[in-house]
């Protein structure tokens, strides 16, 4: 069983590998603003020469959905996030806006996530938001992966940084987390015994089944996926990829996925934030 599955997976990639199709070299311009959709990969990522946005690997029709905000199906969720931003919640009767002011004050925040907090823990956007909700507003935490509110808020905050280059820190207190992330990225797991790198580093540009493999960058999250019919988070996507290789996924919000998020984000340092991106 195990052998057959693996053979199938590899054969499907293999069959198309003769193509070695480059991501098409076309500019990504969203609402008149040109994004950095390809950039020289950082030196600490020896496996990549150039970092490419996942947008470049999508079909023309899927691409078109991301370049016009009106047509972007993720935008209604952003509207919802903006509404939540100024809605009071919890025992303190406060809204995000009461402390943070206009949401545009969040410009730049997405580019540095995930990052190490004051207590030395690695937190992603979701943890920072829930910390404010629970400890500053007296409100309930939003569920990390399924909550429409969390997705709407991370999308609305992410949008404030759209166009700005990803810039996560990998040194200092972040270093041990980054190292763990790197290790996880290259560790083969699951019945198919594959690592993230087997697909997203060794085979990007190739076809797997009917899908055009990208580098698995996360600069566009949360992204609207046509398959999901809604926005989805980084950890949900990681989970899906692990399930595809028949591996037991790590826990969303857990230390492994957070470390992996930091490492994957660093592979795309320099790419523009595209939140909310649209993928198939």
């Amino acid at each position, binding site marked *: 069983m195990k052998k057959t599955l693996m053979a199938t997976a590899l054969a499907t990639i293999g069959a198309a590998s003769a193509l070695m*199709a*480059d991501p*098409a070299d076309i500019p990504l311009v969203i609402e008149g603003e040109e994004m950095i959709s390809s950039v020289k990969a950082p030196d600490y990522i020896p496996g990549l020469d150039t970092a490419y946005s996942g947008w470049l690997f999508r*079909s023309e*029709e899927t691409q*078109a959905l991301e370049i016009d905000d009106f047509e972007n199906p993720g935008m209604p969720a952003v509207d919802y996030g903006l509404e939540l931003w100024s809605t009071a919640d919890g025992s303190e009767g406060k809204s995000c806006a009461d402390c943070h002011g206009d949401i545009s004050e969040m410009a730049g925040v997405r580019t540095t996530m995930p990052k190490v907090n004051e207590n030395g823990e690695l937190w992603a956007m979701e943890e920072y938001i829930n910390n404010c909700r629970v400890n500053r507003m007296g409100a309930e935490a939003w569920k990390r992966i399924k909550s429409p509110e969390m997705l709407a808020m991370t999308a609305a905050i992410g949008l404030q940084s759209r166009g700005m280059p990803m810039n996560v820190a990998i040194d200092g207190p972040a270093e041990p987390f980054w190292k763990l992330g790197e290790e996880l990225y290259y560790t083969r797991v699951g019945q198919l015994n594959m690592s993230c790198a087997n697909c997203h580093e060794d085979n990007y540009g190739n076809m797997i089944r*009917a899908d*055009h493999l990208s580098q698995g960058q996360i600069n566009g999250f949360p992204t609207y996926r*046509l398959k999901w019919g809604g926005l989805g988070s980084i950890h949900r996507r990681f989970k899906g990829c692990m399930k595809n290789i028949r591996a037991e996924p790590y826990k969303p919000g857990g230390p492994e996925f957070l470390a992996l998020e930091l490492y994957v984000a660093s592979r795309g340092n320099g790419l523009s934030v595209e939140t909310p991106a649209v993928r*198939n």
Partner: protein
Amino acid sequence: MKITRRDAVAMGLGATMVAMLPLRVSAAGEEAVMAFTGGAEAGEGDITLTAPEIAENGNTVPISVAAPGAVEIMVLATGNPSPEVANFKFGTASGGAEVSTRMRLAGTQDVIAVAKMADGSFIKTARNVKVTIGGCGG
């Protein structure tokens, strides 16, 4: 070597396509056309249906239809559990029989557009859309 994305997608799909059944309009699809035309034959004419050759996901497939002079357009997806997609009636303030929307396709199939012209005649056109992941269910 540089290959366009479209070529890559098409070539990658090759193997999958061979296994697929030949296409034909479902009985339900034919019935829906007949109901729309009242049994009249729909001929060829100035009607354009724009849809991707290959849709990356059947959940959201963009389509546009234009039929200058039409008073009503019906769109059908012949391979869906039920073929009806949408029906558009153009009123007196319309700027022309031209619309775009997004639809779900359960799999590779023919999409049909039928237009009713101002003189009561009907014209139609069809396009095949290949779907890599079905949009119905799951």
